[in-house]
């Protein structure tokens, strides 16, 4: 649009900053309450007069957040490794073959993009129970790998279709088999879309609540959202303590987001518009 900075742009800038203030206001409350010393009944909107970090230590211990973060890391990490490896591998023949089966396979994965998982949720719960996997982080790694496979295959296939196959051909002429060509030529070339797949899935898996609630509640092995859910249930009236816990639980994704904001936003924008 117009690149000159006029008085109209100034007005627009003021309006946008005001809108951002509205968006950020809840986060300001989150931080300001968490810094409030326990038991002080100050206003819910004013910044605390003598802020303290004590709540963070308390929440960390009482909610057992250290162990929850480890489980969240394990489950997120395991799922991401499987998703990246298997989705990129699957997308390769789907994108390159023009045979009927590859179109059918692509359509099948796309169907998975549409099916709400609520339909599969209850039967899968019973299968996992019969396999005695409930309460085991492995169940969630398997679950997320299957659940997010359609989206990941979709992203990889779209990227590969636009990627010039000349590089692979050169590798094969040099005597590489298809697997070797994939590992040392195709996969490295897919780095941008691998970044997108990692970002979208990490945020989804880290934040997901319903399935860990079903699979892990009542055990010691809880992910962050489930641990926070139990923690708030226990200390419901102690908002400063609770908010400190909420901040700790969401901090890993928020820190990663602010550190990599350009990549995250681009990943979402380019990945999701299909």
């Amino acid at each position, binding site marked *: 649009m117009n690149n000159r900075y006029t008085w109209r742009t100034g007005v627009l800038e003021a309006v946008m*900053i005001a809108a951002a203030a509205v968006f950020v206001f809840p986060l300001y409350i989150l931080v300001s309450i968490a810094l409030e010393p326990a038991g002080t009944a100050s206003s819910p909107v004013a910044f605390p007069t003598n802020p303290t970090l004590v709540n963070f230590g308390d929440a960390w211990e009482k909610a057992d957040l250290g162990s929850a973060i480890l489980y969240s890391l394990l489950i997120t990490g395991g799922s991401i490794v499987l998703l990246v490896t298997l989705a990129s591998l699957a997308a390769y023949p789907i994108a390159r073959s023009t045979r009927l089966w590859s179109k059918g396979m692509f359509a099948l994965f796309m169907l998975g993009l*549409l099916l709400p998982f609520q*339909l599969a949720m209850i039967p899968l719960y019973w299968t996992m129970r019969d396999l005695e996997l409930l309460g085991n982080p492995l169940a969630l790694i398997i679950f997320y790998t299957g659940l997010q496979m359609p989206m990941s295959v979709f992203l990889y296939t779209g990227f590969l279709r636009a990627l010039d196959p000349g590089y692979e051909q050169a590798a094969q002429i040099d005597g590489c088999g298809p697997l070797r060509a994939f590992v040392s030529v195709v996969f490295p070339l897919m780095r941008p879309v691998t970044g997108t797949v990692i970002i979208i899935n990490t945020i989804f898996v880290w934040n997901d609540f319903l399935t860990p609630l079903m699979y892990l509640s009542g055990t010691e092995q809880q992910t962050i959202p489930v641990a926070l859910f139990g923690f708030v249930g226990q200390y419901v009236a102690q908002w400063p303590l609770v908010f400190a816990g909420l901040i700790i639980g969401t901090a890993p994704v*928020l820190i990663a987001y602010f550190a990599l904001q350009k990549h995250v936003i681009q990943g979402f924008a380019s990945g999701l*518009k299909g």
Partner: protein
Amino acid sequence: MPAADAPTDTLARTRPGPKRRTQGERDRRGTPVPWWFVLPALAFFTFVILVPSLQGAWFAFTDWDGLARDRAFVGLEQFREILDDPDARGTVANTLLIALAVTVVQNLIGLLLALGLHSAVKSRNLLRVLFFAPAVITPVVAAYLWRYLYAPRGAINTLLEAVGLEFLQQDWLGDSSLALWSVVVVIIWQFSGMSMVIFLAGLQTVPKELHEAAAVDGAGPFRRFWNVTRPMLAPAITINLMLSIIGGLKLFDQVWVMTGGGPGGATDTLSTVIYRQAFQFNQFAYSTALALVLTGFVIVLSAVQYGYLRREERKTA
């Protein structure tokens, strides 16, 4: 932006050509890739989604209680029960209302924010990061935060009092005529930034020359938006509407944490009822029947929307 190129690429690939493929075409496709590369991904997908979905679609027509090993086929019994139950009908209405309200308002706000930032505004990069930030926050955390903001003596009512608008104070989540809309506001707060980011990516594909030409021809800003920008935004609109309608229909986390479906079922969605019926009341068959209803809504609404929007896209392409 490879994903955006995919549709045209697919078209080129599937267009019926001469029987003998030319050398160039073979080159484009590259050398054959073994089909079994698909198998590991397919195995996970089949185990987690395909088989349980088929099972779920079947259990919906049985009397399964989760305990008995054998299930009897009862036909449409569960669906009749859903239709006869005013609570279930209310839940369906809530779910559709949430999906509709979120889809309209979230995308409208997302579009306005995107248009605002697609300008010479100096702080646009910082603002973009701030608007998108709620979208990466754990929904459970967002829900607790808002439960506090909405509390009778919480931040919103305090703020209203401070600016002399006491008469606007409400029991935001406790009042059954308000609670649903309070939940909708939280979803919109969380995901408007997501819509904005997708619209911004779409706006960057609108060539500046087109706008300048339209301006020279005397088109005002609204005409320029409607006739130049909007058609070019069609793909972004499609994906945004699909994402928000599917997300709205499946909503669980924020409702479960903020209200648990209450007060008196006023905020119950299909997802919260499915969860409660299955895991608190052992009504597994009824619960899978509700899940099948949800699936029907998702598929029908996405298909209608996708078909309509793609036709619009083609009209303007």
